[in-house]
């Protein structure tokens, strides 16, 4: 009945079994009796440290009631217990006589915390001490059951849904299982995986009523620390990145609208705080996954993206962008490629397009590839959703990295003269000239997303953007390049290093004749803005 085996299979079967109600007669009463007994025992002074005494007595009672006879009965016991704990919480939460939130919580936690301790003890003591498989399977099963009960509860209750009992069960269980004990430390990676999978199942898109508790769980200091600092790096990082991506995806359609509803504002603010913590404590994590994050963050969320793009490895010292006569090409880091933990090659779809692209990069022919480029990137005719943004992002980064390799293979380093006159630049110039305003905006944004800390991508794309500005055949292109840079700089800090470098070069270097353009003087407030930016670039103030 369970699809597949192993931890994931256990979780799946738990989720499905949360919907089975054909319990054998008397099981409900037995479970209710046992749960009541356990709650009393848990709170009794005789329970012993970590309820050990109470637990051995309780297992004996479970045996007497025949619950431990089959896996199926155990599963049903957990489902019924979870439902009873949840129902009790609803009764307390609806009780008109209870006004104080602390009293309400104390009443709910009385049962919920006892139940959580029971789960933790059963997980710890299932199978032999060295039998990690049984423990991990049981944990996944129970998490699956709670997940299934939650999803069903939300479906049935709709707007009446309460996140409190589930939130408490998940966080307390996680804390219990994070205790410094050898049995638990041995299965620590599997515990983290199980919780990450659970949170992924319950992502805001699937369980919007749980979204705020979900964000609390995802940003809980112990959880965050364990997943990002203690777990074997790549695994924990990938799982955590997946959770963040699911949050960004959920927020995207709402954030794309200018008028933010209060609930979205709240969730957005929480997301910014998580990003700030990550930027401060785990900047390398944001560096590594920046591509995947930028792919799903709505284009108008400037500050959110800046937080991600401003991250740089902790061992790196960034030269002050306002240093006069800063020679970017002489920085040692500028030749090193950043790590990108996203397979952007595979994102260039369909395969026939990828084939044509590679062939054009190699042979610089046929010219029809360029003229058809715009159609390949377009997906609909609806304004605001005309283009396949992930495809544009993948194309820009892929062509850029190919160009860097091509230049390096010739024994050169990318700079304003080596990047020109190649199949790669053909593609970029074509996208700049041939796109409509929307397409060009997305294209330029894809370039600006690579302007980060000193590395070969930052340098190449900085040169590319400046070159596109210099070689533009219409003022509209130059205006749009300026817009993309400026709109990322007028928001509050942080600002990515590469972005500042590029913008300062644009307004300082006489070759670009920046100040001769009409759009600089299109409105008095814009003009003032440019002048103030220029002043701060030319005469750096101590920060």
């Amino acid at each position, binding site marked *: 009945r369970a699809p597949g085996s192993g931890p994931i299979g256990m979780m799946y079967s738990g989720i499905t079994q949360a919907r089975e109600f054909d319990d054998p007669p008397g099981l409900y009463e037995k479970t209710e009796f046992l749960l009541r007994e356990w709650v009393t025992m848990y709170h009794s002074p005789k329970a012993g440290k970590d309820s050990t005494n109470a637990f051995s007595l309780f297992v004996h009672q479970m045996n007497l009631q025949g619950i431990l006879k089959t896996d199926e009965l155990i599963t049903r016991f957990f489902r019924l217990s979870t439902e009873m704990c949840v129902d009790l919480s609803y009764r307390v939460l609806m009780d008109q006589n209870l006004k104080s939130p602390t009293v309400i919580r104390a009443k709910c936690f009385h049962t919920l915390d006892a139940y959580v301790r029971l789960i933790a003890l059963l997980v710890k003591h299932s199978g032999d001490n060295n039998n990690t498989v049984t423990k991990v399977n049981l944990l996944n099963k129970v998490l699956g059951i709670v997940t299934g009960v939650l999803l069903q509860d939300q479906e049935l209750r709709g707007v009446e849904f309460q*996140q409190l009992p589930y939130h408490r069960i998940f966080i307390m269980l996680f804390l219990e299982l994070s205790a410094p004990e050898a049995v638990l430390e041995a299965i620590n990676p599997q515990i983290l995986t199980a919780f990450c999978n659970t949170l992924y199942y319950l992502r805001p898109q699937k369980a919007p009523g749980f979204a705020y508790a979900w964000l609390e769980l995802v940003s809980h200091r112990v959880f965050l620390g364990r997943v990002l600092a203690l777990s074997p790096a790549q695994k924990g990082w990938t799982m955590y990145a997946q959770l963040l991506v699911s949050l960004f995806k959920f927020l995207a*359609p709402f954030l794309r609208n200018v008028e933010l509803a209060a609930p979205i504002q709240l969730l957005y603010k929480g997301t910014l705080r998580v990003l700030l913590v990550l930027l401060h404590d785990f900047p390398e994590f944001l560096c590594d996954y920046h591509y995947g994050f930028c792919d799903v963050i709505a284009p108008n969320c400037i500050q959110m993206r800046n937080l991600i793009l401003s991250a740089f490895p902790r061992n790196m010292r960034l030269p002050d962008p306002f240093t006069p006569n800063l020679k970017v090409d002489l920085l040692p880091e500028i030749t090193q490629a950043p790590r990108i933990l996203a397979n952007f090659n595979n994102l260039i779809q369909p395969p026939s397009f990828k084939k044509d692209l590679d062939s054009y990069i190699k042979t610089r022919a046929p010219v029809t590839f360029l003229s058809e480029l715009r159609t390949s990137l377009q997906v609909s005719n609806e304004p605001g959703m005309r283009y396949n943004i992930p495809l544009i992002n993948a194309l820009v980064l892929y062509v850029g990295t190919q160009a860097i390799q091509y230049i390096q293979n010739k024994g050169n380093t990318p700079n304003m003269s080596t990047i020109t006159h190649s199949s790669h630049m053909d593609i970029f110039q074509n996208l700049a000239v041939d796109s409509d305003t929307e397409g060009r905006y997305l294209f330029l944004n894809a370039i600006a997303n690579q302007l980060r800390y000193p590395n070969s991508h930052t340098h190449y794309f900085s040169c590319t953007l400046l070159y596109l500005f210099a070689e533009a055949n219409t003022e509209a292109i130059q205006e749009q390049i300026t817009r993309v840079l400026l709109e990322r700089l007028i928001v509050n800090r942080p600002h990515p290093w590469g972005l500042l470098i590029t913008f300062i070069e644009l307004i300082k270097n006489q070759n670009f004749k920046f100040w001769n353009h009409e759009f600089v003087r299109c409105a008095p407030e814009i003009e003032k803005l440019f002048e103030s930016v220029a002043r701060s670039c030319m005469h750096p103030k101590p920060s």
Partner: protein
Amino acid sequence: PQNSFTSEQKQSMNILEVACKRLPLPIDSQRCRHLGPGAPYQTPDYYPSSAPKCNTMEFFQRLSTETLFFIFYFLQGTKAQYFAAKALKTKSWRFHTMFMMWFQRHEEPKTITDDFEQGTYVYFDFEKWTQRKKEGFTFEYKYLEDKDLN
């Protein structure tokens, strides 16, 4: 851009609307404390909302003995309790695991053997919330909490 939400997104929004009226509280992700801070309360801006650098041993060393007793008994299972116990030990207080009270020698013990010592002690009575003196008390070492707190 215009508001063009899918029906699923509209549904999510309705649910979020209600959910954000039932937000989680900080205590929801903390272990139960039977006493201590409860529900958040709106305080005036001039009222300090956090103490600077209070998570260090130096800070706890500066606290009065009575404050340390309060922390020890009322903030169970917290880092603060751990610091308080450590600070009390440096002030020559010893914890009696059967009486669950802190004792301090009032004078050199009259008798000292391998299993106990006997003499006059000062102890902190948490029920009466006061320090008391006890003459001729036998402190059995098996009740001495002597784990190294590091």
